[in-house]
């Protein structure tokens, strides 16, 4: 069993779970008293599962054949001996603390020091990477870009608007935020640093209007623009919700394959439609559900799933990788300058920026770039249906 010194750490409560053999609850309860002096109340004697652990040593959950008990080190050792001998007690293990996924209040201070770098940059270890993204063109298809943002002075920026009647200037903010994460500065005048590929060439394609809306035609035109301009990476923090069983778009799958054949990897947000605090996991949205588009989910600073992050529901339409997507600080159009928001939209440019670092460091493109992103991703103790190969990591 777990060493006693571990019990105050790693999300345990300091109490223990004692598992009893089948049909041996009464005998097991007696034996806990006999060998360890533990007197536990039975939930048959109480109104509900609430029990005051100040007054008793524990609670026996009769239906489960499990007791939750307080035990000092001597008592724990006695219980441990008893489970290793024939008898009604079969297992002792530390009680773990469990949380509702949304239990962390949004305004709780971050557990990571962000005075120099955002938590997201630290989580993907971009601040430690020698790679800069120099020479790599990153296309971000979104609401455009605040082309006058002071954090991007002197940067190579190429723009195109696919929205009729609107220039590329970002009248929303979403696009400027995403470009900031993928391509923004690592060492801005005003800390923290927040950009992954801070010397990459920015290609800002406006495919969502200032009101945040777009169409398939505009998005496909943006992808084509990125391919024509030799961008190895397309970041798309956009999507439309799907229902379980919905087929993926053959048009986008074909487009993604043709993009791959021309050296361009498309990375897209998995979507924000899950409500994990209610037990609901929604499928990956369109077009991230296409097999040849890399779908990005979101984790928070504690490496827990973001409550909104879409998951793998069908045989196709899987989450491929995750990035930091809760309380993400990045650039925003004037007058705000910077903003902190959440979404798989924010996780996606982390992956796109890291893809640019890998593309620069290794020369990898297309499927090889996908493979390297997956191969060096940090494995997480979470379902692969939620996180794919894990948390994206800088080379």
């Amino acid at each position, binding site marked *: 069993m777990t060493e006693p010194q571990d019990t105050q750490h790693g999300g345990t409560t300091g109490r223990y779970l004692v598992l009893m053999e089948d049909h041996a609850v009464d005998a097991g309860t007696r034996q806990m008293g006999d060998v360890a002096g533990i007197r536990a109340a039975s939930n048959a004697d109480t109104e509900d599962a609430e029990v005051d652990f100040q007054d008793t040593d524990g609670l026996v959950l009769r239906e489960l054949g499990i007791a939750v008990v307080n035990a000092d080190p001597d008592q724990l050792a006695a219980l441990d001996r008893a489970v290793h001998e024939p008898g009604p007690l079969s297992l002792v293990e530390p009680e773990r603390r469990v949380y509702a996924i949304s239990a962390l209040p949004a305004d709780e201070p971050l557990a990571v020091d962000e005075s120099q770098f955002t938590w997201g940059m630290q989580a993907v270890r971009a601040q430690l990477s020698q790679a800069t993204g120099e020479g790599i063109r990153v296309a971000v298809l979104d609401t455009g870009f605040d082309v006058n943002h002071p954090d991007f002075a002197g940067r190579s920026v190429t723009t195109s608007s696919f929205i009729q009647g609107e220039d590329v200037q970002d009248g929303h903010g*979403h696009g400027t935020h995403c470009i900031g994460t993928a391509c923004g500065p690592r060492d801005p005048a005003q800390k923290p640093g927040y950009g992954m590929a801070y010397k990459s060439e920015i290609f800002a394609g406006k495919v969502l209007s200032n009101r*945040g*809306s777009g*169409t398939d035609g505009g998005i496909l035109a943006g*992808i084509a623009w990125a391919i024509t301009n030799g961008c190895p990476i397309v970041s798309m*923090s956009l999507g439309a919700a799907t229902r379980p069983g919905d087929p993926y778009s*053959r048009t986008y799958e074909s487009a993604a394959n043709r993009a791959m054949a021309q050296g361009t990897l498309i990375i897209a947000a998995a979507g924000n439609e899950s409500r994990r605090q209610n037990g609901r996991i929604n499928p990956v949205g*369109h077009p991230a559900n296409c097999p040849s588009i890399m779908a990005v989910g979101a984790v928070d600073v504690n490496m827990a799933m973001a409550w909104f992050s879409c998951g793998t529901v069908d045989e196709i339409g899987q989450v491929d990788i995750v990035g930091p997507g809760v309380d993400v600080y990045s650039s925003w159009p004037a007058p705000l300058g910077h903003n902190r928001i959440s979404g798989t939209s924010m996780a996606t440019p982390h992956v796109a920026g890291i893809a640019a670092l890998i593309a620069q460091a290794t020369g990898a493109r297309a499927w090889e770039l996908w493979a390297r992103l997956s191969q060096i991703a940090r494995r997480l103790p979470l379902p692969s249906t939620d996180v794919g190969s894990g948390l994206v990591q800088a080379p």
Partner: protein
Amino acid sequence: MNDIDEPLERVMVTLDDAGLSRVDEVVAELRQAGMEVEEVIAPVGTITGSVPPESLDAVQGVPGVDFVEAQIAAFQIPDPDEDLQ
């Protein structure tokens, strides 16, 4: 030929590689078949536009066309002041 069973207006016509190699001819034939062509997005092999429902079979049947899909409902991200984007 036609795997679409409901009327559409705005469509995405994706060409096969043979069709893509002679895209100008295919576009002309799509127009003849009744498609109002909006944009030829050659690098991804897709042509956007509108088709009257009665012309769908003809569009689908143009040599070089791989498949036809409806344009999916508009994409929409939240307003700028929302925390969840």
